[in-house]
C-alpha cells in the first residue's frame, strides 16, 4: 500500500480541525459521565441496594451497539452532536460507576474512623478524605472511558457528526487508504495524549503516593 504523504501535507489543517472536533465529541461524554457517576457512586455506597440495579442498567446500555444507540437517539435529538454525546455518556457510565464505587470501597475502615474522630462530618469526610483516596481507581476508569470514547466517536460519522470519522468514511468511499490511515493514527495519538494527561493529573491529585514512592 502506498501512503500519499503529499495528500497529508496538503490536508494538515483539515485533519487538525477534525481532530479538535473529534476530541470535543469524545471527551464531553466522559466529563458528563463523571458528573453523573460521582454522586451516583456515593449514593450506591450509602444505599447498597441501589448498586446492583444501577450496574445492571449500565451494563445493558453497554451492550447496545454504538451505531444502534445513535440511531435510537436521532429521533429525539436529530442529527446533532447530542446524538453522539448522550450515547457515549451512557457508555462511560458502565466503566465509571463501578470504579467510583470500588474506589470509595478502597478507603480502609481505620482511615474512615480516624476522619470521624478528627470531627469530620459525613460530607467533609467524603470530600476531604474518601474522594481523594478514591482518585487512583476513579482515574483508572476515566482512562479506559476516555480512550474508548475517542475510538468510538469515529462511528458517529455514520450519522454525519464529523470529527476524524469523516476522514475514515470519506477515505473508504474514495477507496483511498491514506485518508483512513491518517485519521486512524490521529485517533490513536489523541487517545495516547489524553491517557498521558490523565496519568499526570492523577500524580498531581495524589501527591502522597509519590512521597511514599508507590505511585
Amino acid at each position, binding site marked *: *500500500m502506498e501512503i500519499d504523504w503529499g495528500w497529508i501535507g496538503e490536508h494538515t489543517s483539515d485533519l487538525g480541525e477534525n481532530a479538535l472536533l473529534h476530541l470535543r465529541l469524545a471527551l464531553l461524554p466522559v466529563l458528563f459521565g463523571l458528573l453523573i457517576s460521582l454522586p451516583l457512586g456515593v449514593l450506591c455506597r450509602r444505599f447498597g441496594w441501589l448498586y446492583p440495579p444501577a450496574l445492571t442498567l449500565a*451494563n*445493558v446500555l*453497554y*451492550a*447496545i*451497539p*454504538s*451505531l*444502534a*444507540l445513535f*440511531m*435510537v437517539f436521532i*429521533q429525539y435529538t436529530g442529527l446533532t452532536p447530542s446524538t453522539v454525546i448522550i450515547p457515549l455518556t451512557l457508555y462511560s457510565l458502565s466503566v465509571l460507576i463501578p470504579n467510583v464505587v*470500588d474506589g470509595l470501597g478502597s478507603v480502609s475502615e481505620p482511615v474512615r474512623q480516624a476522619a470521624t474522630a478528627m470531627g469530620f462530618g459525613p460530607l467533609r469526610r467524603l470530600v476531604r478524605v474518601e474522594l481523594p483516596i478514591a482518585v487512583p481507581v476513579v482515574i483508572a476508569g476515566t*482512562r*479506559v472511558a476516555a*480512550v*474508548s470514547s*475517542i*475510538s*468510538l466517536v*469515529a*462511528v458517529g460519522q*455514520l*450519522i454525519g457528526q464529523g470529527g*476524524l*470519522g469523516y476522514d*475514515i*468514511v470519506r*477515505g*473508504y468511499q474514495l*477507496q*483511498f*487508504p491514506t485518508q*483512513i*490511515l491518517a*485519521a*486512524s493514527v490521529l*485517533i*490513536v495519538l489523541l*487517545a*495516547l495524549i489524553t*491517557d498521558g494527561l490523565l496519568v499526570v493529573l492523577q500524580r498531581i491529585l495524589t501527591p502522597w503516593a509519590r512521597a511514599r514512592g508507590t505511585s
Partner: protein
Amino acid sequence: MNELWNQIDLSWSWLTSAEQWEGANGIPHRLWQHLIYSGTSLFFAALIGLALGLLVGHTGRGGFLATGLANVARAIPTFGLVLVIVVIDYSITPVLIALVALAVPPILVNTYEGVRGVDADARDAARGMGMTGWGVLWRAELPMAMPLILLGLRTSAIQVVATATLAAYPGFGGLGRYIIDGLARNDYQLVVGGTVLVVALALLVQSVFAVLRRLLVSPGLLGTARS
C-alpha cells in the same frame, strides 16, 4: 413515550413476521453470521489475551509493557481499522482482525491483574507443597484469578457482539445489516429490530458468563471475590 411504544410495537411486528425468519436476509442467517464473526474473534482474542496475561502475571515481568500495549490497542479505532484493511483486501479477515484487537485488552489486563493479585502467601504455600512453576500457575494462580479472568472475557464478549455490527458497513452481513440498511432507508423499524436482536444476544452472553462463573469459580472464592 407514546412514540417509544409505537416503535416497540413496530419492531415487535417486524421481529415476529414470518418473512424475517427465512432466506439470506432472514434473521437466522444474519444471526449465524454474527455468531461466527463474534465467536471466531473472541476465540483468538482469548488465546492471545490469556496466554500473554498468564505469562506476564506469573513471571511478574513486562507488566508495564503488557498493560501499556493493551491501552494502545484500546485506542485503535475499530471502525478505521476495519475500513482501511477492507480497502486493501476486501475480505472478512480485516473485520476479524479489528474485532480481535478490540477484544484482547480487557482479557489481557484482567488476566494479568488477576494473577498478579494472587496473595503472595498462597503462592508460597503452593510452592511449599512442592508444586513446580506450571503447577503453581495452573492449580493456584489460575483458579484464584478466575473471577477477574471471566470478567475480562465477559467484557470482551459483549463488546465484540456489539461491535460486530460494523461488519455490515463494508457489506459482510451479520445483525448490523438491519441497522445499516435501516439507516440508509430511514426505516426505524429495521434499526430498532436489529438493535433488539443485538442487545438480546449481548444479554445472552451475560447470562452465559453468569453460568460459567458458577461452574468455574471455586466456591471458596465466590464469597469474597469481587464480581
